[in-house]
């Protein structure tokens, strides 16, 4: 990485943009200050700042310095007020386009990740740590005043950060949903449930939900060596959850495959950006194929990509002969997105998963039928890579959307500098279904507690409930981890 060249690139871009602003400005000496934004070219500079700070090629303070000086320089020439542009930090986070590069804790270099090719058993993955992951697939009916419904326990996870169930919930009527305010876990609800263990301990339950899924944490932390937990609801038979010994292989028995990779920080960032682009296509529906108006969100996302690629190359975090810029150009061409400024010729071959998603989007009649409701337990810890510990905690189809739950350790808590980490994971997460179709995952909601991120990812397109198995691919800079997992769907009554 060449930080000096990175900063020089950004400052030279500011010079170019200032000259352009100067030449295009109608300068009125002595005119009152205008409230209009003086810097139409500010976003171009801000995007480069975002990208360079995301890969740590320029520190946030230096990037802000360039942005603020640019805003002031244009303002004093155009006799306009830089106003909000002086608040430069949002410019670095606005849109959250670029994932922060991440390669382990600060003192860990590329060599510290230590991944090697091969298959790792679930037991092997969790050995050496207290982590315990148990797939559940249990449904617990409940009744609260006039509202009845059920909680589906997808998995139980016990890590150094604590013990939690990943769950979905439903009421039996829309009226009930409204009555509950879609805030499952309000003050009354946790008291409905009790959890105890084979040693006679009882636990307090802490509910944390967004819409129809979330987690229930146990407090205090259960001791090691428990044989079972029991969840009780008034009027229902208690549900017993057998806990395996620590390090024992779970029922899924998944043996994730590790493929070492050596992606540069720039390549990883652009690859994750491509995921976000493909996710956005799914978000905005099939109209994207037909009208430029509908493609506006994609144009907005990709504007200035050429500058970003040039900046990453200048910072020496993107090899000059990397295939990724050409692949991004080809992806943009496939989506009829122009104006990105990428100069690399489109190509070469696109990754299979991109092609799969593109072919889905470009079908004459893409599958728009909402995915049927259902939930599938998962509990798999993936081998550590890039300093990250990722575990899969469950999958469900709700309201026509497919959600995948993850637990991620190894990322620091968001300290308020740079782009928010959690809204833009530094890894690619994809899922291939038993029909061979790929699905891209993007962060839908997140919470941080005790050193771990609990994430809910949304899949595009949604998963058919007939899917018998999935292959989950998590791709970082140093490795791609692939886990093949059978799905045992549970259905709402």
């Amino acid at each position: 990485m060449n930080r000096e060249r990175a900063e020089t690139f950004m400052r030279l871009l500011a010079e170019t943009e200032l000259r352009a602003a100067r030449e295009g400005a109608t300068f009125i000496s002595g005119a009152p200050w205008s409230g209009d934004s003086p810097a139409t070219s500010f976003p171009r500079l801000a995007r480069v700042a975002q990208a360079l700070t995301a890969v740590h090629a320029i520190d946030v303070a230096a990037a802000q310095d360039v942005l603020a000086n640019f805003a002031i320089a244009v303002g004093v020439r155009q006799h306009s007020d830089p106003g909000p542009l002086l608040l430069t930090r949002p410019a670095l986070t606005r849109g959250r386009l670029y994932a922060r590069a991440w390669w382990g804790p600060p003192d860990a270099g590329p060599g510290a990740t230590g991944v090697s090719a091969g298959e790792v058993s679930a037991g092997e993955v969790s050995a050496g740590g207290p982590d315990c992951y148990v797939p559940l697939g249990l449904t617990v009916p409940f009744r609260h005043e006039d509202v009845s419904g059920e909680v589906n326990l997808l998995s139980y996870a016990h890590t150094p950060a604590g013990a939690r169930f990943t769950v979905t919930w439903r009421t039996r009527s829309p009226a009930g949903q409204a009555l509950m305010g879609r805030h499952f876990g309000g003050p009354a609800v946790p008291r409905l449930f009790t959890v105890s263990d084979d040693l006679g301990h009882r636990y307090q339950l802490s509910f944390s939900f967004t819409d129809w899924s979330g987690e229930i944490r146990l407090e205090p932390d259960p001791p090691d060596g428990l044989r079972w937990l029991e969840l009780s609801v008034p009027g229902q038979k208690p549900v017993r959850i057998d806990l395996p010994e620590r390090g024992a292989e779970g029922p899924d028995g998944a043996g994730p495959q590790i493929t070492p990779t050596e992606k540069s920080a720039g390549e990883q960032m652009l690859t994750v950006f491509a995921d976000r682009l493909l996710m956005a296509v799914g978000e905005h529906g099939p109209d994207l194929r037909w009208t430029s108006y509908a493609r506006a969100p994609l144009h907005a996302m990709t504007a200035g990509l050429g500058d970003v690629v040039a900046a990453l190359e200048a910072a020496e975090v993107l090899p000059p002969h990397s295939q990724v810029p050409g692949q991004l150009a080809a992806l943009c061409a496939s989506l009829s997105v122009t104006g990105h400024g990428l100069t690399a010729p489109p190509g070469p071959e696109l990754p299979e998963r991109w092609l799969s998603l593109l072919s889905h989007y470009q079908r004459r009649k893409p599958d728009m039928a909402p995915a049927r409701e259902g939930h599938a337990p998962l509990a798999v810890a993936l081998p550590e890579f890039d300093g990250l510990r990722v575990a899969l905690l469950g999958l469900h189809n709700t309201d026509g959307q497919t959600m995948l739950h993850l637990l991620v350790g190894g990322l620091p808590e968001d300290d308020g500098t740079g782009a928010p980490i959690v809204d833009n994971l530094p890894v690619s997460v994809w899922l291939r279904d038993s029909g061979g179709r790929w699905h891209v995952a993007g962060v839908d909601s997140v919470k941080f507690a005790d050193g771990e991120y609990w994430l809910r990812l949304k899949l595009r397109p949604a998963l058919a409930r007939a899917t018998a198995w999935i292959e989950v691919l998590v791709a970082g800079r140093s490795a791609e981890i692939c886990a093949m997992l059978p799905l045992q769907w549970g259905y709402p009554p």
Partner: protein
Amino acid sequence: VTVIPSDEWHACLPSCEAMVPCGQGTHAVRWEAGALRLTEHPDAEAEAVLAALGGDKARCVEVGEAWARHADDLSVLAIGPRGPADEVVISWDDVAAAQQGAGGGFVFTGSAAGRPAAMRPVSAAGLHPSVPAAVQRRRRRAQEELELVRRRRTDMLSLLALGYGFQVRLAGQVAAAHADVGVGSGSGEVAEGRARPALVAAMTGRLGPVAEQWLGLDPDQVVVSLHAGPGWGSVELTGRGEQRRLLVALPARWLARVWAAGLALVDRHLVVAVERAGWPDARVLGLRAPGAEPEPLDVHDGRPGGGHAPHWEV
């Protein structure tokens, strides 16, 4: 040709003066021999102390303090003029308006620029108490940063309001403060190295218009690097058509000694160094064309007293 300057960077610059509204009147502020002098405030330090104790601070004193704060601030190079054609005209009314918050009175309320990311209601925000804490940290930090930048802006407006003569002299002073960059001058090397990107950009932004005037090149075709070591540097023209580039390697002190003194282009020569500094007469090294050897030129300010920017002639 080896050029080792033994004189002050500002030796080719005459003194200059500006009038500043101060209190009930207007006071002269003077730049002379590299220093700003507040002629009507002989004990500005004492006045500043009194102001700190609750008294009013004189505008002249404020200007003097701003000058001192930014005498080695590279922001001056990023904001100030790139050449005579880029004169930045700021009135004292503009300064007053900015200081009072009118016009420049943006206050961070958490809703700047529509919806800043820090305050955007992301779906994560409501999930856990730690998320609002992070948002609070962001907000607090943003507020602190905004205050610093607003102060920088009002400082800059005050300094720009002094006029073009002061603007280039301050730029020269800043460049001189960092002029050892690239030379590898011992303990200061790391800190100075941090200034290199800003200096390269500052020189590029100022050499571009000069090259346009000198050779008819697009300013984007000028590629600047900082020259370190003996000699004045190099200036070469390479490529053809769109690939044409003017590769310029000059020491950072060029900004202070040559550009700030208005010597960059004299009689169709790109001046690369000052051999014998002085005003209104000096001897410089000028290039008639890229790749040529620099030739000594005796130059003279043909408009002494005619303005704050010298008008050099051979």
